[in-house]
């Protein structure tokens, strides 16, 4: 670049001024805050985390909790609840979004129009409105537990939640989980080994089929070996509500459904754009060299489409996770909602908000870190 005389000095001055202004602003804010805190007799620090929380939490994920537990444990429950709804949301939204995106590309006029109308409507209404709508739909239009709908035997839909049978407590399920994890690792290693072998020119394996078998067969064997338990914990109507079985609360159902329906519309557009970005000539070239339709999709089109899909998809995953904080508006006990209760009870606003921001920053950075790693894998390799 063309460097004018004295431009280095002016650059230095500009930067010093910017830094100075930022530091002065920070000092002004911190000084005011300290003064205000002293005036209001609010002790700062994280000591409050060890104190008894004293409020109940409607639902928990993995972590048991009672009102006698500490604030720290309550916040951990909040983080686990956030993680649960975000994970369910990301998986389901990716699945639904891909389906809708493919439907938009369909030659079937009706299907394509339906998908387009869905995307158009959902994207232009705030998520919060949709959450309130879904919550109202569940609590106002579903019957009370006594008159619950039973679409399948043992499955009940009511305004107090969705109830379904769960497998009864048995050690077989732990063994199945272990077998599933071991099978997944084996499938990954096998895939690597097969790829390395194919490069050497040896005869290939039907990798997807063997991989799938490696993941699914061990849990099935473990189930049979552990005595094939058939006992089911079926929900029973006791008094005004169901007990037993698995419960999906109205709050979780509304939040998860809202996040999935909303994010799927955005993912659909990303998938559509990604596939449209692969030119038709690529299909033709793949057929011309003798690939089957599936091979062409798997080895030619999909790798190129993924390259256009992955970066914006990352953004949608991050958005979904951040949007899960809207839980506070419909009463699902996620991190923000529990931190909010904590702030109201203890007055430790700065610490509470710092915790929220720190957790979300960590989640954001880890998701984008993971997706960057994945993106680097699917990205164009250098011409070597």
């Amino acid at each position: 670049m063309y460097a004018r005389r004295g431009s280095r000095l002016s650059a230095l001055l500009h930067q010093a001024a910017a830094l100075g202004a930022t530091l002065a602003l920070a000092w002004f804010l911190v000084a005011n805050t300290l003064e205000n805190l002293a005036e209001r007799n609010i002790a700062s620090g994280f000591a409050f985390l060890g104190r008894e929380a004293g409020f109940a939490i409607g639902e928990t994920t993995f972590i048991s909790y009672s009102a006698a537990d500490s604030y720290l444990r309550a916040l951990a429950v909040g983080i686990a609840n956030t993680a649960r709804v975000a994970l369910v949301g990301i998986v389901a939204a990716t699945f639904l979004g891909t389906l809708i995106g493919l439907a938009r590309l369909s030659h079937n006029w009706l299907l394509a129009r339906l998908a387009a109308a869905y995307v158009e409507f959902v994207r232009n209404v705030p998520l919060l409105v949709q959450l309130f709508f879904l919550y109202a739909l569940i609590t106002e239009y579903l019957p009370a537990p006594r008159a619950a709908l039973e679409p399948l035997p043992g499955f009940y839909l009511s305004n107090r939640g969705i109830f379904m049978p769960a497998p009864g407590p048995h050690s077989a399920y732990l063994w199945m989980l272990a077998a599933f994890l071991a099978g997944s690792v084996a499938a990954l290693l096998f895939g690597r080994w097969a790829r390395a072998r194919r490069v050497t020119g040896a005869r290939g394996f039907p990798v997807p089929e063997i991989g799938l078998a490696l993941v699914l067969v061990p849990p099935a064997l473990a189930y049979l070996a552990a005595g094939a338990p058939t006992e089911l914990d079926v929900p029973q109507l006791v008094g005004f509500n169901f007990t037993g079985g698995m419960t999906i609360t109205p709050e979780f159902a509304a939040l998860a459904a809202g996040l999935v329906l909303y994010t799927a519309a955005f993912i659909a557009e990303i998938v559509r754009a990604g596939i449209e970005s692969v030119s038709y000539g690529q299909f033709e070239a793949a057929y011309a060299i003798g690939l089957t339709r599936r091979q062409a999709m798997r080895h030619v089109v999909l790798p190129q489409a993924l390259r256009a899909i992955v970066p914006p998809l990352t953004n949608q995953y991050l958005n979904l996770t951040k949007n899960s904080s809207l839980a506070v508006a419909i009463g699902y006990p996620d991190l923000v909602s529990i931190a909010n209760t904590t702030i109201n009870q203890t007055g430790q606003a700065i610490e509470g908000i710092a915790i929220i921001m720190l957790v979300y920053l960590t989640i954001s950075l880890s998701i984008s870190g993971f997706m960057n790693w994945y993106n680097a894998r699917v990205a164009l390799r250098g011409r070597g």
Partner: protein
Amino acid sequence: MSGKTWSVPGWVRANLFPGPLSGLATLAILYLAWQALPPLVNWAFLDAVWSARDAGPCRAEHAGACWAFVTDKYRFILFGTYPYEAHWRPAVATVLLIALWIVSLVRAAWKPWLLLPWACGLTAIGVLMWGGVFGLGYVENERWGGLTLTLLLVTFGIGCAFPLAVLLALARRSSLPVLRGLAVGYIELIRGVPLISLLFMASVMLPLFLPSGVSIDKLLRAQIALILFAAAYLAEIVRGGLQAVPRAQYDAADALGFSYGQKMLYVILPQALRIAIPPLVNSFIGFFKDTSLVLIIGLFDLLSTVKVALTEPAWSGFGVEAYLFASLVYFVFCYAMSRYSRALEREYARGRRSAFWSLDLPR
């Protein structure tokens, strides 16, 4: 379809039954529509209660949708707790604001003189809303609400966030490492946390940040949080625009001996912002939707007035109708903006093919 004459059976065959699986999908959709549409139409129109003083008729045995909620409560939903007899003031202000936006969307109006109608319009809106002069009674801004408040939050949010975003984008693209670091830190921090945490911060922490004795009201606090939030997202779009300006343009401006300010103001920004307008409009839509979150810190925006109207015991239990109405209002605004952004994109795509400067000459 080229070369053949268009016929109904031909179209149906080609578009509804192109293959066995697709034909099955068509049949499934038609079956579902046949099952779901009649009850839906009955609920929404034929059995609906369109007007009533209270929810009595809505609670009758076979009553459908209770639109009476909307027809009874629409003034509260649109204008919040603004004094009832003075509702014409927020109504005129809202129409004025929408008119200003529509004028600003016309490309021929993208000239410096556009600032004049905005200045006059916003002054008029301020006079109408606050009053206290010309015989209008004074109304404190705690009583503003509904659609008017939502539109005001959006307008001032975008108006203040945009210049901030341009500065942030320039800083992020700057060659000065300290400036760049500060901009990157700010943008990534804001984009990494949910808007709710910023709104909480504004409502609980902002009073702590200020010298004792100084206080700012709830509306202004929420507005500040929205501006700081929007600026980070808009900055990334402006940065995209800056990156899309061909390198040669920067070099040409340097070669002419332009200073940094001249280079940006006369050469780079006009091109960068032009490129960035369609994505900017898209992010305005997102921002419009995001303003609904101020409900959580207790501001009376459009969604909040709907929710408050529902808490009245006479109307409780009609959330589905109420939120459908809210969706419709948001949809009208957002859909209009998204059509506009798409039209603009098409126009640009046409223009770009002949645009000389888009040729990225080898350096």
